[in-house]
């Protein structure tokens, strides 16, 4: 009986130790901020090839490359970066609950979002465009009358089509991968969203040579770095972005991540000058 009691006490003590160890780890992480032994938690997309893509533990894409460069300029080594998935609908919550330190996830700067989060950047100006099969003769949204167009449920791109091109038959899917698969089957004539996302999809190995980005953008999306409200890192991040553009790493990152997609970014708007911090 007594041994049982001792055993129980030992187990309880062990459990308490383990739990407190976990707690300690968490609090060290959430303090974040200044470099030196600390990790920085960066929110990215995990499901967008060419921008933020989870390749079984390692991450690739333009957003990831910019994030690594900026984190490097802020004094973090690559090992100190912890990438966290930031799906579109969760980005504001992740920032305001302090679950990530910054977000590089095709995050367009808008006035509504500025009410809840701060932005550094922009580091890229994307525009809504169309992805079509290589032999298609669609050259812009005007050609879509009566055609089947696919976009993601609840996205800005889908809403824009509904508002401005009501004659288009819009199909909404949970992700762009489903749209592209459906276009491969021939029932969908075009997929629409920001040009660089389309370029990333077209550059995927499985899609090589099948699709092309039309290159006729009809909106302007400023991709910024999402920061918690009141963050003091905005100036430093802007300086890092400017440096990245000036030393050619920015250009290199775009070229590398859209290779094989026959894509050129809108040179009138890119590379952008980061906006002054609020």
């Amino acid at each position, binding site marked *: 009986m007594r041994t049982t009691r001792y055993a129980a006490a030992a187990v309880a003590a062990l459990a308490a130790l383990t739990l407190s160890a976990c707690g300690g780890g968490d609090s060290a992480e959430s303090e974040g901020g200044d470099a030196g032994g600390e990790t920085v938690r960066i929110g990215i997309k995990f499901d967008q090839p060419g921008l933020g893509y989870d390749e079984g533990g390692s991450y690739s894409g333009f957003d990831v490359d910019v994030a690594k460069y900026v984190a490097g300029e802020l004094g973090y080594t690559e090992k100190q970066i912890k990438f966290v998935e930031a799906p579109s609908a969760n980005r504001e919550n992740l920032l305001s609950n302090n679950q990530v330190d910054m977000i590089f996830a095709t995050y367009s700067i808008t006035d509504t*979002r500025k009410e809840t989060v701060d932005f550094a950047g922009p580091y890229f100006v994307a525009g809504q465009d169309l992805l079509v099969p290589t032999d298609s003769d669609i050259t812009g949204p005007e050609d879509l009358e009566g055609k089947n167009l696919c976009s993601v*449920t609840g996205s800005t791109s889908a*809403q824009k089509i509904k508002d401005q091109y009501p004659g288009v038959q819009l199909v909404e899917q*949970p992700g762009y991968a489903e749209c592209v698969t459906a276009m491969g089957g021939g029932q969908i004539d075009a997929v629409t969203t920001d040009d660089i996302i389309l370029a990333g999809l077209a550059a995927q190995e499985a899609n090589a040579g099948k699709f092309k980005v039309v290159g006729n953008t009809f909106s302007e999306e400023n991709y910024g770095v999402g920061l918690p409200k009141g963050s003091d890192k905005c100036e430093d991040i802007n300086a890092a972005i400017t440096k990245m553009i000036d030393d050619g790493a920015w250009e290199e990152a775009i070229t590398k991540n859209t290779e094989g997609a026959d894509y050129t970014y809108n040179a009138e708007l890119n590379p952008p000058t980061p906006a002054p911090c609020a």
Partner: protein
Amino acid sequence: MENYLSLFETYNVPAAFWVNIQLSFWAAIWALAIGTVLALFRISPIPSLQLFGAAYVNIFRNTPLTIILAFGFLGLFSVMQISLASDLNISLFRIAIVGLSLYHAAFVCEAIRSGVNTVPLGQAEAARAIGLSFLPAARLIILPQAFRGAIAPLGNVLIALIKNSTVAAAGSVATESSGLMKTMIEFRSDLVIPIFLTFALGFVILVIPIGLLTTWASRKLAVAR
């Protein structure tokens, strides 16, 4: 508060719920029909039909609904190019109803079978004794009593169906409520929590009357023994 109310001017929330109600209504009718036939198969004296019923239930009950509906879009619509209407969105709406019906038919079948278990064996023996063969016995004696015993579990299936109708977004019915919720979050990120609560409340309002009604009906209609 004003901010919140302005949401309802920009976005038609009741219309989105109406799409869910339509999806649920048609899927409930088809699921009830298919599920009743499956239950008949499972209690029939013919082994091949029993096997078919059991196989159907086990396959559809154990497949995630998202996969069934995504298959409706990627498989039936994109690859096999099946069209159920000339208008693209109506066609996708019907494909989603097919997916929802096939999935919930498995649950309806099991609910009815649980109702059959409430019918004493003596009823079936008595039916056989007065010369009824399987189908007339099922139609006149077993199923009427089984349905009255299965009202509560059938109500549960209906409640699950209403909530599951949001998965139709995976089958490209983007006008339903979870699709509208995504749009609202995309454009009004300053009101994420109120938007979530609005849709949660909407479903509570839809579902609670059904729960009350089935509980009342199952008491009222239970076969007194």
